[in-house]
């Protein structure tokens, strides 16, 4: 009986730890092939503080399917706070909050065809730059 419980809890713990790894590693930041950004610049870009890379206007887009993971990993911010921050920034400074795409496919399509676009996906496709 004890070994059954042990196996059950071990399995649950293993599953939880694996899912935690997957959660933390979920969001990979990508950019249009003509735009190179570093991982250290991601927070500034999604806060609207960095709007240009060289002469190119940056266009960040959110991915609804991965937003919680991204905000936790790159922005250290909860979803509510992120939205409130953008409301204040948009109202005060006239900045436009990132458009929200429904998932990886939409983000990848947008990033590939839009100069300066920056998004995040669960796995990096070919034909885009990955922020490092």
């Amino acid at each position: 009986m004890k070994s059954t419980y042990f196996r059950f809890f071990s399995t649950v713990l293993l599953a939880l730890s694996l899912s935690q790894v997957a959660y933390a590693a979920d969001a990979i930041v990508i950019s249009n092939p003509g735009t190179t950004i570093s991982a250290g610049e991601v927070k500034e870009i999604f806060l609207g503080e960095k709007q240009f890379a060289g002469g190119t206007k940056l266009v960040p887009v959110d991915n609804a399917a991965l937003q919680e993971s991204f905000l936790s990993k790159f922005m250290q911010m909860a979803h509510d706070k992120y939205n409130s921050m953008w409301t204040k920034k948009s109202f005060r400074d006239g900045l436009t909050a990132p458009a929200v795409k429904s998932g990886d496919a939409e983000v990848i399509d947008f990033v590939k065809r839009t100069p300066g676009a920056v998004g995040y996906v669960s796995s990096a496709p070919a034909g885009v730059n990955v922020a490092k």
Partner: protein
Amino acid sequence: MVTVKNVNVSRSRQGGLPAFLGATLAGLVLTIPAPAQAESDGVPLHGFADAGFAMHSKESPNPKGFNVGSLDFYLTPQFDNNVKGLIEIIFETTSAGEVATDLERMQMGYTFSDNATVWMGRFHTPYGYWNTGFHHGAQIQTAVSRPRFLDFEDKGGILPAHMVGLMANGKVRAGGGKFTYDAFVGNGPKIGMAQDLVVTTTQAPGTLSINTAGDDNHQAMVGLNLGYEFSGMADGLRLAVHTFRGDVGDDSDGTFSLTLLNITEVSMAGGSVAYLGNDWEVLGEYYRFNNKDKSGTTGSHSSWADYLQVGKTIDNVTPFIRLEKTVLSQLDNYFSMQDSGQSYNRQALGFKYDISQKASLKLELLNSKFMAESGRIAYSYRSLLTQYAIRF
């Protein structure tokens, strides 16, 4: 106390203009593409709305009962990589119960880099924190009321909350944080005297008017707001200094003649602190005036105004307290000719309850005391204000 009927403060009443502005907004939403985004995305329309209930003790001049606050729409179109706009239109009820429409902001900008954007048009005057941070955004403001001296020109404010002119602003990384600046040059206000007055005392009936169509004198108003945003341990803290200077005239005989009878050189300097971190909200602003009578012989006069508000968010509730005080020289035409230029002190206590991310309920108690001064009657009153505010 003054009772003013049908005061025209450059706001249109119901009719043609609201319909025109509504149609313009709708047109903008439908026709402006966001160039770097998918063409079908258009430009999102955002805004704020609020309604409330107020009770006052009997000496209060303010209306009581239920009230419709304001309905505010704004757009942030990006016309191309560098050209952008900020367009805001507001519908609000006056104390007389009429609906007024205002082209609140109409500023067209050009962004040179992350460090510099230049705007032209009508904008919120960048002094302190409150005026640009909250303005008509009731839902993002913890309190129901603004500090009275920072209120809108026609609602008790003594500063030009709006400006028509040029503004440059931006942020520059410096040390661990960021240096911020807002610099402006604009028409500057005049003190507009009410056209159709029923004056029950000798109190001055003037209201700041922002000269949207052009300046009424040959000296522009210029101003600067320099700040520093900290990072690391002090992330969320911003310290700033602000100043503005310009000539302000009034037509104090109420005849709307082209000759301004009093001209005052208004010089303001002060500072602000804002801390928005770890669920705390600490806001403080100080304004020192050293105004010079340029049309008479009364010389220079010093006045000051300040407030401090402290709040702390616990779960969905943010209780707060605010203290505000002004000492305004009545020898100074800039204050003596304004209806709201009477010295006062006020204490506010209340809370904001966030029902959701986009809807809040607020309750606020106010204790206001106005001082006996030359041409002014002392009075005091207490108020209870509630507000239901949303954003979209």
